[in-house]
């Protein structure tokens, strides 16, 4: 992402603006939910963060494949940055889910499929970062990271299915009521739906913005290293 400083600046401003609007929507526009009350507003934040966590992993998967085929280190930089940012969002998603779960289900944690798969996904993220940390050769590090990103991402849906066949108590949200939903599900009205979609969109933009900044930082750092090496060997 060779964005000029100016373009990046504009992106940063736009992202900030979107965040303000989204916050406004969540607290002022969306109605208060009947059963759960104000705490339900965490839901918009939670779903958006969770979605970004998953999307970031998807990006790492795709970019990993591209890196293995082309060998261009830029793709590795994007993958690495995506994992870092994705991990943060995944933790935020889990934390916000937990905050929401306590009043809604009267428990901080449950071992339902989505939540469990989420935790495992976070662990795969962490493993990815640890793998990178432990390898010195840059070329090997990038290759191994790409491979693990691919393997890890493929395992996530399989993990989800395996645990879902095992048990389910995560509420069915998008849609009305639901036969297999336990307590904690709710029907969404139109303003809620709008708020949710806007929140998800905003968070996606935040992700892209953070990614662009992070990759640029990485590129600048590498250029400094390069110049240093040239200077020392001259």
């Amino acid at each position, binding site marked *: 992402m060779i964005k000029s400083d100016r373009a990046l600046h504009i992106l940063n401003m736009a992202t900030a603006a979107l965040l303000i609007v989204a916050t406004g929507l969540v607290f002022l526009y969306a109605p208060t939910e009947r059963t759960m009350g104000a705490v339900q507003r965490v839901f918009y934040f939670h779903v958006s963060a969770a979605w970004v966590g998953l999307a970031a992993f998807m990006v790492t998967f795709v970019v990993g494949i591209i890196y293995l085929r082309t060998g261009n280190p830029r793709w590795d930089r994007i993958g690495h940055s995506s994992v870092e940012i994705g991990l943060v969002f995944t933790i935020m998603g889990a934390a916000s889910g937990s905050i929401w779960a306590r009043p809604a289900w009267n428990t901080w944690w449950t071992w339902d499929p989505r939540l469990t798969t989420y935790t495992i996904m976070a662990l795969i993220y962490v493993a990815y970062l640890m793998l990178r940390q432990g390898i010195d*050769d*840059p*070329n090997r590090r990038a290759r191994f990271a790409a491979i693990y990103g691919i393997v890890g991402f493929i395992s996530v849906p399989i993990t989800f299915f395996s645990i879902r066949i095992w048990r389910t108590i995560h509420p069915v949200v998008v849609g009305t009521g639901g036969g297999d939903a336990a307590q904690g599900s709710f029907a969404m009205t139109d303003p809620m739906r709008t708020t949710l979609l806007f929140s998800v969109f905003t968070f996606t933009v935040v992700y892209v913005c953070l990614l662009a900044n992070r990759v640029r930082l990485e590129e600048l750092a*590498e250029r400094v*290293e390069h110049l240093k090496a040239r200077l020392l060997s001259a």
Partner: protein
Amino acid sequence: MIETRALAKNFGLKPVLRGVDLRIEAGEFVALMGPNGAGKTTLLRILSTLARPSFGAARVAGFLLPAQAEQARRRLGVIAHQPLLYGDLTAEENLRFYARMYGVSDGARLTEWLERVGLAARRRDLVRTFSRGMQQRLAIARGLLHDPDVVLLDEPYTGLDPDGAALLDAIVQELAARRRTLLMITHDLAHGFALAERALILARGRIEASLRRDEIAPAEFARRYDAVVKG
């Protein structure tokens, strides 16, 4: 035959090979020399298909690397300073394993090689009971039993006692007589220059000199080597 054009290899940001051009004709015996860290082993690893170049092209035994690496490996033999053997297998089992991997089905050849490197008596002994010198001898057999056209040697005399060194000298000269292409990395200037027809000097990531044995005297060679390496 070995040929490279503008071959370069970087490890991260550090350039090790900075554009190596060389051409070794089929049947030539060339010694590769240079100071530590010049990139000799890296060059050999690329030519033996164990590593990929960062830039440039290479052709070994008529095959383009890295695209046709698998075909090239069929015609390549490598004798390194590490024996690359399995300690828990016998000498015979080691050779038989490699024979299978190279598609050599002639069992008699294994026996011949064991005798040639002087290990026929120890064929059923585990390699981890061998001394360093014996392991290196077995490594020679391992590297050559599929009768490669191109033989790459990386300091192959490491660990060999005088007898073993004489054996390797003889084998290497026979290979040269049979018009096999040989490229040998060595630190022993005099010895290398005496064996090979030509010496390439790799310094600072490039081939800085190519000296033919029939053109200069050994004493002069040592002087020229120093001059090139000092830059």
